[in-house]
């Protein structure tokens, strides 16, 4: 658990971060979203003390981070940035090994961890360990950047617009991979972005910032249903908020068990359990169908979803 208490950063007369307090839950993804100049990056960088707060405290598991040497604190916290920041003169394996080396891990342990991470990120260690960053594609460089941030098994991973430099298709893949990795390692992730879609897609909780102030910090569905501020409703988008809400629920969560339904027809479209309701609705509209069969990864039917079921979920208290 990370607790921010009245965290403030001033540069001269301007207050970049203004008395922000929030509690970040363990094993979750928290997204800080805001326009440029909202202070979101500064807030993130105060957690690992790349920026020293003007006032206020950061507690990790109840311990005040100001009482530790900043560089020792940072070795315990993963940090990934836009444009990856890989060292161009070190190989992929050497880049990943930086923090473990700083922490004095034994060579075999570093080697095992590097290979494990490369495999997790779908980069074959035999092929990629000895390559230099400039020999990789943009998406691969970004994956190595995240792998490097996770190398020393940090409990907390801070990410500053990590997917900003990627094209939309690779970005979607990177976002999915990040959620898989979060589930696998149970890391607490705090991610900064200006992209509300990304925030909704990744965040268990989303913090909306503007002009240094924290406007609202809540679950994505709550941001849509009960925006605390006109600016929040504007940022989450009034026009397609129902669609946003649908995109937060998967087909598996909303599927109605088959036995209760009698209106089944054989030419129903089939949708996967991980698809969002927004995607299912789109598929139904496209096919002109009234209901879809939800199947799991193995193809076994989990239940059905009708247009009416989906529409019911598109209301704030549905």
């Amino acid at each position, binding site marked *: 658990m990370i607790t921010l208490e009245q965290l403030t950063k001033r540069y001269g007369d301007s207050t970049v971060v203004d008395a922000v307090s929030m509690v970040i839950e363990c094993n979750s993804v928290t997204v800080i979203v805001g326009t440029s100049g909202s202070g979101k990056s500064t807030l993130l960088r105060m957690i*690992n003390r*790349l920026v020293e707060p003007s006032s206020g405290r950061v507690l990790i598991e109840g311990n005040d981070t100001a009482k530790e040497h900043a*560089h*020792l*604190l*940072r*070795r*315990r916290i993963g*940090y990934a*940035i*836009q*444009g*990856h*920041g*890989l*060292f*161009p*003169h070190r190989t992929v394996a050497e880049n990943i090994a*930086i*923090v473990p080396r*700083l922490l004095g891990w034994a060579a075999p342990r570093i080697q095992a961890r590097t290979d494990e991470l490369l495999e997790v990120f779908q980069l074959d260690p035999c092929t990629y360990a000895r390559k*230099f960053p*400039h020999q990789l594609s943009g998406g691969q460089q970004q994956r190595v*950047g995240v792998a*490097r*941030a996770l190398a020393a098994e940090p409990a907390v991973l*801070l990410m500053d617009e990590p997917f900003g430099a990627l094209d939309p298709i690779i970005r979607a893949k990177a976002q999915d991979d990040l959620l898989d990795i979060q589930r696998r390692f149970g890391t607490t992730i705090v991610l900064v972005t200006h992209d509300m879609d990304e925030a909704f897609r990744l965040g268990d909780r989303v913090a909306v910032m503007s002009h240094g102030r924290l406007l609202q910090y809540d679950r994505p569905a709550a941001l849509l249903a009960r925006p605390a501020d006109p600016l929040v409703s504007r940022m989450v988008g009034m026009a397609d908020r129902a669609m946003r809400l649908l995109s937060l629920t998967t087909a598996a969560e909303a599927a109605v068990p088959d036995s209760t339904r009698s209106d089944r027809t054989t030419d129903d479209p089939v949708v996967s359990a991980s698809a969002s309701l927004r995607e299912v609705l789109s598929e139904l509209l496209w096919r002109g169908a009234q209901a879809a069969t939800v199947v799991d990864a193995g193809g076994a039917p989990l239940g059905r979803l009708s247009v009416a079921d989906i529409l019911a979920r598109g209301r704030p208290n549905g």
Partner: protein
Amino acid sequence: MHDEVLALSAQAGGKLSAPAAYLRGFDRLGVVLAACAAAGFICLPFVVFKSNRIVPGDPRGVLEVLPMWAALSCYVVLSCDAAVALRIRGARVRLVAALIGLGVVLLALAVACNALTPQGNKVVRIAPGAGFWVLLIALGLMATDAITRMHLRPRTRVLSLVVFLAVAGLAFCHGWFDNVSIMREYAVNAERFSREAQRHIWLALGSLTAAVIVALPIGIFCHRVPRLRSVILGTLNVIQTVPSIALFGILMVPLGALAAAMPLAADLGISGIGAAPAVVALFLYSLLPIVANTATGLQRVSPAAVEAARGMGMTSWQILISVELILALPVILTGIRIVLVQNIGLVTIAALIGGGGLGVFVFQGIGQTATDLVLLGAIPTVGLAFSAAVLLDALVEVMDRGRR
């Protein structure tokens, strides 16, 4: 392949004006080199015969000094070279042709000097003539042009330098050139030569080392405090514009006073003239390129890499050593290369104020109007600077690999 190249150049020539069109199908550099070499070889003396070391000499052409067979082979080889220079674009062929040409010209010089020197006569001097130098320069340019176009790997370039030096060393050890006037001067001054050559290298390297030790921190400081950057670089720039002889003169006063005031300084060899002002002046000249390149090199390091290094918990010292300086190293080394080559040349002037080095022979030779003695100082200096440039260029390129 050559036909293709010729066809291409003919196409390019087609668009040009009349005189250029006339030259189509010919390599332009080749035309210049072949014309100069032919004019030099035919019209200028190949060697100059002098009855002693300071009298003006008696010019001799190739046909006068070489046996008929040797002169004819010389003509044949050089004509082939001219043909290659004019018509063939392939860098390898041109390099081989130029090297063969150089070998033949040098052999011809050795044969001519041996033939002209009366048995056992130590007074007669046979100096290379203007024709020889023109040929040497033309063929040398042809070879360097070919090497540049071949884009050799750094290791190959260093290896070539070593082979070249080894062949040259072998030729001198075997005494092939012993009757050439410059080698006559060397024979007289052999002991002094090796002493002054070593001193030359120490003066150049010593001032470079001192400059690196001082300039690196200043460069880092310039990078960290951008406000002072222009002030520091401006000051060093002013030092750079002071002519070397003037700087020696300026340094004489404080260094002389220091030696007079502190006996310890005098015991350490510091005085108004000699090595001390030479080293200090070279040191001052060395600062600007190293400071400027260090600051530029650090500035070019990716800010994302430095940010990531900090975010991962590296200390500022670790970031400086293992990220910033390592990444800036190729640029810093380029500065060191400039300084080393510059210093090897400038040390020559140090002889004027008793600093020693190969310049001793240059100034002695000027005093005695003995051109051969001047060359005894000048040619090794050029060789040293050239070797240093090749070595450091190769090092910079190796360092620069894999980091874009």
